[in-house]
């Protein structure tokens, strides 16, 4: 698989323009959401760590936007885009990042534990790789119950060096589970180039060593990600786990406050030329959409997320009694006896 560049976007000749327009809109909304969130860190409104996925929106939209609502998603610490693309409400997500009432986890999770069970999003995870075995288990339950939905599990290229990666993939394969594993390969694990810490040829080879076919795709090309996802999901729905490696790049730091000094300005500038949103926009223009209309979509996304920011800022803190809620039923800390 060779990385395509913006100059050779490689769109299929008869792509669905309306679909790409929707994908472009969602990518703009994810970008705007995260830009607003990063801004809120400087304003001391987002207190905990966030991990922006700026530059990786095509993976979120290409994979998660292809799932049905009934399908299940498990995500990582870098999960805003995945969660939104699965259908979660960005206002509730923003409130969650701000730790305010109205947050999708009632202000108890924050960015790293964002979840929306209503849309099948069973959680981001603060522990790298932990979502992989949970995803296998979710698919296990689906199989036991005889349902036909699928589970998509996204993780970074750093996660493939953790034990649960091997255990979870092996599990899915031996039990024949409906899981699509997606390695979002942005080349970095925090401040380390993942390759420097990864033996052998990498994620796809590891999946294949377990008998799970793997496909690699340009993760900055939303159409390519969607097409690969659709193709793999056809097998996944028949109890054949599949593995997708989406090659991408995170255009900003590991966290919202990381200036990422571990890479050169030239490298980052070059990566910006492969910005997935600009690429989709280029394709749409070639397909006849007016640049102004496309700019208006991006502007409207910005306005929407600034409004989400304002809503979150104005939202009250959660009632502090909530600290005691939802710990457990047996041994509930609200009972005086404990």
């Amino acid at each position, binding site marked *: 698989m060779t990385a395509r560049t913006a100059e050779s976007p490689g769109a299929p000749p008869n792509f669905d323009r309306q679909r790409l327009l929707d994908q472009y809109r969602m990518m703009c909304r994810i970008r705007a959401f995260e830009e607003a969130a990063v801004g809120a860190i400087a304003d001391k409104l987002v207190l905990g760590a966030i991990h922006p996925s700026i530059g990786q929106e095509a993976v979120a939209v290409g994979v998660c936007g292809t799932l049905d609502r009934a399908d*299940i998603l*498990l995500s990582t610490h870098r999960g805003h885009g995945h969660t939104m693309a699965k259908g979660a409400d960005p206002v509730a997500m923003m409130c969650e990042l701000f730790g305010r009432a109205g*947050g*999708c*986890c*009632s*202000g*108890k*999770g924050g960015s790293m*534990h964002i*979840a*929306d*069970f209503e849309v099948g999003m*069973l*959680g981001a*995870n*603060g*522990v790298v790789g*932990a979502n*992989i*075995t*949970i*995803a*296998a*288990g*979710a*698919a*296990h*339950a*689906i*199989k*036991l*119950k005889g349902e036909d939905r699928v*589970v998509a599990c996204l993780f970074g290229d750093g996660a493939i060096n953790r*034990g*649960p990666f*091997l*255990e*979870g993939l*092996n*599990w899915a394969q*031996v039990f024949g589970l409906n899981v699509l594993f997606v390695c979002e390969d942005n080349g970095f694990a925090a401040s380390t180039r993942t390759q420097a810490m990864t033996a052998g040829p990498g994620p796809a080879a590891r999946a294949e060593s377990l008998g799970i076919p793997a496909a690699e795709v340009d993760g900055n090309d939303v159409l390519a990600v969607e097409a690969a996802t659709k193709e793999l999901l056809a097998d996944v729905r028949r109890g054949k786990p599949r593995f997708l490696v989406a090659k991408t790049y995170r255009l900003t730091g590991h966290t919202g406050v990381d200036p990422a000094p571990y890479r050169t300005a030239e490298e980052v500038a070059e990566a910006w030329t492969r910005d997935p949103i600009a690429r989709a926009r280029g394709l749409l223009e070639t397909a006849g959409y007016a640049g102004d209309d496309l700019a208006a979509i991006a502007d409207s996304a910005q306005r929407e997320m600034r409004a989400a920011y304002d809503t979150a800022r104005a939202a009250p803190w959660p009632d502090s009694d909530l600290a005691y*809620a*939802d*710990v*457990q*039923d*047996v*041994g509930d*800390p609200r009972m005086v*006896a*404990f």
Partner: protein
Amino acid sequence: MGRMTYIDAARQTLAEEMRRDPTVWAVGEDLGRGGVFTQYKGLVEEFGPDRISDAPISEAAILGAAVGAAMMGTRPVVEMRFSDFALCAVDELVNQAAKARYMFGGQSRVPMVVREPIGMWRSSAAQHSQSLEAWYAHIPGLVVVTPATPADLRVLLAGAIRCDDPVVFMEHKDLWALEGEVPDGPVDGDPIVELGRARVAREGRDITIVSWSAAVHGAMAAAETLGTEGISAEVIDLRTIWPWDREAVLASVRRTGRLLVVHEAVAAGGFGAEIAATVAETLHGDLRAPVRRLGAPRIPISYAPPLEDRVRVTPEAIVAAARSMVGQPEAADG
């Protein structure tokens, strides 16, 4: 009332719960062949390999998969074989199972039972003998169950399976063959309410001995001996250590004025410390003797019997401690 072994109580209860609720399933290594202690023997014939499910030797995946499956509306009963191996899945239990409901703001429940056989079992040595119940009692979100008798195993396992919290269910390996009286018929009523409720195993006036799991039997033997010496010991079997029955312990100590906590686990940082502290904080003025704890020294468990026995809390040691607390001299070999 009929008699039943601890292991039969375990097997029969799981089978009944699986018949009662089709979402209950068990998963772990070698379950299809009955489990390492035969506590799953014969179940695959009745329920099939999907519900009595063999797993790869992947403790993290067994537990992580159970978390995902529990979130998706099934009730997995996870077999960890030896509690020592559950340490390969600490993240899955402590960071995932215990916290999912809380950190997702109540959107999810994780109704799963993690069976972790604990305790010394002759010459199993340091990696197959631990009693780590206090670790889990320390983790918000978990329920920790430590049955000492077949009857309790039965009702507590039913309660653990039916409750919506993640439960660490610790059977003692040395008790598998223990026989005891068990009420006839399936577990009735609401066994969930038994989680957190202690049992007065023996009534007494002079001293309260609080214990759980296999150590209860040592405490009972000690109480018997103490009785022949004119010391009336009350033995409380906590049955679950989170939640633990604070009221039962406080009521008893209020009457006897003395508390001795006995457990097999290492004394330092053991759950006995929590009980001792609570009693000291609450009943200071009512105590007739300083609170005492008996547990293992802080050393790993040996292989050779004499070395292994050195860390056991014996009935003799319990008798000696109790005697000294009620003001009678300890025996020379105490």
